[in-house]
């Protein structure tokens, strides 16, 4: 059996002349949490839909657990980007219904629904109709509905959008717990903090194509280390600058500059040798957010310089 729960190769989708997804490939290791990141309109949702077999790709293939997605529907839990529930249904019934769609017995679905809702502090709305709930609450109900049948693969499209911080925290907890149960999680987001905290690996999609694939650390490593240095004595700024790498800028009483990994120890040696002293020194990797912005801007810049695909440009315009 493959080590990958999801293997999508070269997925391509056109909407008319617009290439919405351009040869996107995803390989999600079994038992991992995988994030698909990208700006709005990048093609994340279409990629996920093709991966799950909801829509057919114009090119490329998708295999889930080594089979056609349609053959393993019952092993998948899916939260679509556009949330949808029957407004006239009660919460517990709505969850049991979604479980029943994936082959779960109704009674067992109701029992599990009550358990999940109690755990997530939603027990007071167990028999409340969906139409009476807040948007965030309904979203939590739908999320529970997508995992109530204990799927082996959980696909969540922008799961955090619309949730308050408390519910975002609960959702993160739920995702980790499902992973610990053995499930594979694939989710899309454009909020980097969640991906940074949760994901084992990420793919960044921009302008319809996959632009990066790797771990969060590998994404962050695309940018140099960020240094914030405060000398003991302000002294002569020019003399200080001479001891620091080119591009160092003084903001307030601290110098800010970037260095490559290999330059850290030589930098420390130079500061020590200079006799400027140290009041404050932080050397840190940039956040995923910075790496994401860096990648997307690079892609945007290259497209601006050489549009290449007229259809994409036309559509994005």
């Amino acid at each position, binding site marked *: 059996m493959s080590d990958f729960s999801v293997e999508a190769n070269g997925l391509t989708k056109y909407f*008319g002349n617009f290439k919405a997804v351009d040869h996107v490939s995803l390989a999600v290791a079994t038992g991992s949490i995988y994030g698909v990141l990208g700006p709005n309109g990048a093609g994340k949702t279409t990629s996920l839909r093709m991966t799950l077999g909801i829509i*057919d790709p*114009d090119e490329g293939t998708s295999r889930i657990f080594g089979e056609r997605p*349609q053959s393993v529907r019952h092993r998948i839990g899916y939260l679509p980007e556009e949330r*949808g529930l029957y407004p006239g249904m009660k919460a517990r019934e709505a969850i049991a219904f979604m479980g029943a769609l994936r082959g779960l017995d109704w009674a067992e679905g109701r029992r599990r629904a009550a358990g999940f809702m109690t755990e997530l502090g939603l027990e007071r709305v167990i028999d409340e109709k969906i139409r009476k709930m807040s948007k965030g609450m309904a979203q939590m109900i739908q999320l529970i509905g997508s995992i109530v049948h204990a799927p082996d693969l959980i696909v969540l499209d922008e799961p955090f959008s619309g949730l308050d911080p408390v519910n975002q925290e609960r959702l993160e907890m739920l995702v980790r717990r499902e992973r610990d149960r053995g499930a594979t999680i694939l989710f899309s987001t454009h909020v980097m903090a969640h991906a940074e905290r949760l994901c084992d690996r990420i793919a960044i999609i921009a302008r319809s194509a996959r632009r990066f694939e790797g771990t969060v650390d590998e994404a962050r490593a695309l940018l140099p280390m960020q240094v914030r240095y405060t000398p003991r004595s302000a002294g002569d700024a020019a003399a200080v600058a001479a001891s620091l790498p080119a591009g160092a800028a003084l903001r307030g009483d601290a110098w800010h500059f970037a260095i490559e990994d290999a330059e850290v120890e030589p930098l420390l040696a130079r500061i020590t040798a200079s006799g400027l002293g140290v009041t404050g020194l932080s050397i840190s990797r940039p956040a995923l957010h910075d790496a994401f912005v860096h990648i997307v801007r690079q892609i945007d810049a290259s497209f601006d310089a050489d549009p290449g695909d007229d259809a994409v440009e036309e559509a994005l315009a």
Partner: protein
Amino acid sequence: MSPFLKNMFVIARRDFLSIVATPTFLLFLLAPLFMIGMGAIGGVGASQLADSARGAGRIVAVVDERDAEALRAADVRLRDALPRSERPVTLKIRIVTAEPIDPVAIAREKGSDTYAVLSGPLAAPRIVEREKDSSSGRYLALLASEVLLTRAAGTVPPVAPRFESLTSGGASIAVQQSMGFAAVFVIFLLTLLLAGQAVGMLAEEKGNKVIEILAAAVPLESVFLGKLLGLLGVAILFIAFWSTMAIGGGLIAATQMDPAAIAAAGTASKPAAALLSAPATGWPFFIGIGFAYFIMAFLLLGAVFLGVGAQAGTVREIQMLSLPITIFQVGMFSLSAAAASAPGSGLATFAQIFPFSSPLAMAARAASDDARAVHLLAFGWQAIWVALVIYLSVRLFRAGVLSGGSGWKFWRRAATAAAITAAAASDRH
């Protein structure tokens, strides 16, 4: 149970409960009260249809050449004397040949609407009527009398006609045709009642965005079939409710009546005679097959409406789609009703073969034709069309709503193919 069927029943259960477990379902249950009003309108239509059919019908006299001219002349005289509304249908005269002629066979000839056939000597003719005590039969007797009276130029002994009514399984053909029409009408009304709901069903899913969850979880074919099944469940509940009410009401009424009066009514009145008559295939078969054809009509038309309705995204679009759908339904009803009044005609055959009128027309056929095996064939034919319509509806739905299914719309396929070719060419360079 296979996953496909299981999914279908999950969808059906949800839809069934979402309709039944609401206060508005009570209004739906009361719909027969509105149906009675519609029935009255339908009755007028049927009457007009019958009148027009009568105009196209015939009475036949099988006589020798000597009597033929005299009969034609008498027919012209008598017609002129009668008010327009009471004039009989066209008189056709057949000349007696060496071959024996069977008047019953003439009365049963396919493709023509024969009300009565006169044969034998004019003084004591044999008159085969489609319906007992019909005005057509009496008119033929009057014609014979008129010819004899003219020839004798004086008093003649009264004509002594021997009437016999055409029967099939002991029932009048006319009564059986009425039963056929009633079957068409009931099936039409029930499908009409449910069509509106079928049109709006997928629009609900699109409106509240559940469709993507359904499409991701189960095959769209089982979504479509599940929805039809759920609605069929509602229909069966509806039929069961009103059947129970009717049977209960009938039993209560029966306990209030004098048995002797019921027996007397059975021999005297025409409606009672109709009740005592049986369709050509017999009551149990006719009721069973009528119910089965209702299911087929519902599945066929429901699948069309579901598929068409699936293209609608708003209430306004649903309303716009409702009109052509209703016109289509009425068209199928008219076709089947016309077929019911002219069994054996080319029109009837067409209505029985045309997929969307087939269930109605075949139900009517079960009333007047005792052949049973043909219904199996019809079921098979209709089932093929149900599957075909659902398949096409799903493709249309997938292409239109989920923006998938590349290759369905030919213009989209062409545009996409061109885009892919262009992209491949650009990659090569």
